[in-house]
């Protein structure tokens, strides 16, 4: 299987690449459109800011190729947020694969932001490799709108999608590579 890890030059690919190694997979790390389009599976990781990431996607000519992928693809954290129409983070137009907006989480007493740590999830889609009650690791200040694409949800002040699914795309707001045994189940299910 050819798995491409999209390298936007702004994320930490390290933890995802090493996690795939635990499944015996050596991903192709690239930003080349042809390589991405010809992959069996694609992972779009992301740590950083939406504005900078979309700028990189534009500069690398990846907007069209990413939007028209047909093979199974997974966006992680910022990589999931980029699938939506628009992010409030630096008022950024994103890929528009999933309808909805990405909004800032508002802190409140007893509710610090970033949402950082292990949150319990409710699972709506039985084919994610996850079960309701699993704890998954989150680290984010912006969150996607809850909507028809939500496949698993967590709560941090408001309900936030932990996993979204739309066609060939999956998005994980949590970090599967850092979510222990439950995260490994999720990754394994995507890699199968």
């Amino acid at each position, binding site marked *: 299987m050819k798995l491409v890890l999209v390298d936007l030059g702004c994320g930490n690919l*390290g933890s995802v690449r090493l996690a795939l190694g635990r499944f015996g997979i050596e991903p192709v790390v690239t930003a080349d459109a042809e390589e991405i389009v010809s992959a069996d599976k694609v992972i779009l990781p992301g740590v950083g800011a939406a504005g*900078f990431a979309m700028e990189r996607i534009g500069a690398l000519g990846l907007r069209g190729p990413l939007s028209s992928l047909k093979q199974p693809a997974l966006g992680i954290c910022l990589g999931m947020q980029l699938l939506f129409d628009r992010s409030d983070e630096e008022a950024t137009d994103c890929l528009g694969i999933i309808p909805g907006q990405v909004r800032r989480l508002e802190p409140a007493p007893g509710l610090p*932001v970033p949402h950082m740590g292990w949150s319990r999830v409710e699972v709506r889609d039985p084919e994610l490799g996850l079960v309701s009650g699993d704890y998954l690791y989150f680290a984010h200040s912006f969150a996607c709108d809850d909507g028809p694409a939500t496949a698993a949800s967590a709560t941090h002040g408001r309900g936030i999608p932990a996993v979204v699914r739309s066609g060939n795309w999956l998005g994980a707001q949590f970090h599967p590579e850092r979510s222990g045994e439950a995260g490994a189940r999720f990754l394994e299910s995507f890699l199968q």
Partner: protein
Amino acid sequence: MPARRIIPCLDVKDGRVVKGVRFRDHRDAGDIVEQATRYRDEGADELVFYDISASAEDRTLDLDWVREIARVIDIPFTAAGGLRTRDQGAACLDAGADKLSINSPALERPELIEELARDFGSQCVVLGVDSYQRDGDYFVHQYTGSPDKSRDTGLRTLDWVRDVCDRGAGEVVLNCMSRDGVRSGYDLDHVAAVMGALTVPVIASGGAGAPEHFRDAFVAGASGALAATVFHDRIIAIPDLKEYLAKCGIEMRR
């Protein structure tokens, strides 16, 4: 609010885990990867690795052990020690660290926090603060990894944490130096004061000696509690600690 986090802290010196009392007299406490794996298996929610002499020796941390840890564990970990530039931070994240903890270098050049937060997001920028009680207030100390270079900056801790979080830090590890390694409990008043000044998660550090101390830190509102001695010396087992805290009504990942 997510489950409260139990965070073993591993001080690293010359590639080995060490532990000192009140930042002095470091003694060997084991191999890094073995220790990381042990804590992961016992149910630690996150790990912190401080290369304690890096800042004082004017060098950055060794990426080899960051890669080794990232390869073997599947829980988040923070790396710290002499990260002075945006590019050193990038290299450390690329080696597989989830978060960067910045302490002395932020005191040298606070703009570093802005640069890291802008390029990698606030969620991976942690401010480490060594806070010392003096004259009825708390002040920030620098270069605490080296007894010879350690100094009082004269900065009030509350002013400093506010400033750095305005610059984009996404979490604060508050280490109360007068409690470090003494096992008499976290400085709860100080934790509460710092939390009151900030909207980001605050991690209590320094002074844990008994399960009740963790409970008190969480009741005071800390998002996580960090400890070294009680875990390294097997005075408290993490599974027992989590069971106790859950019985106290504190949400734990188990």
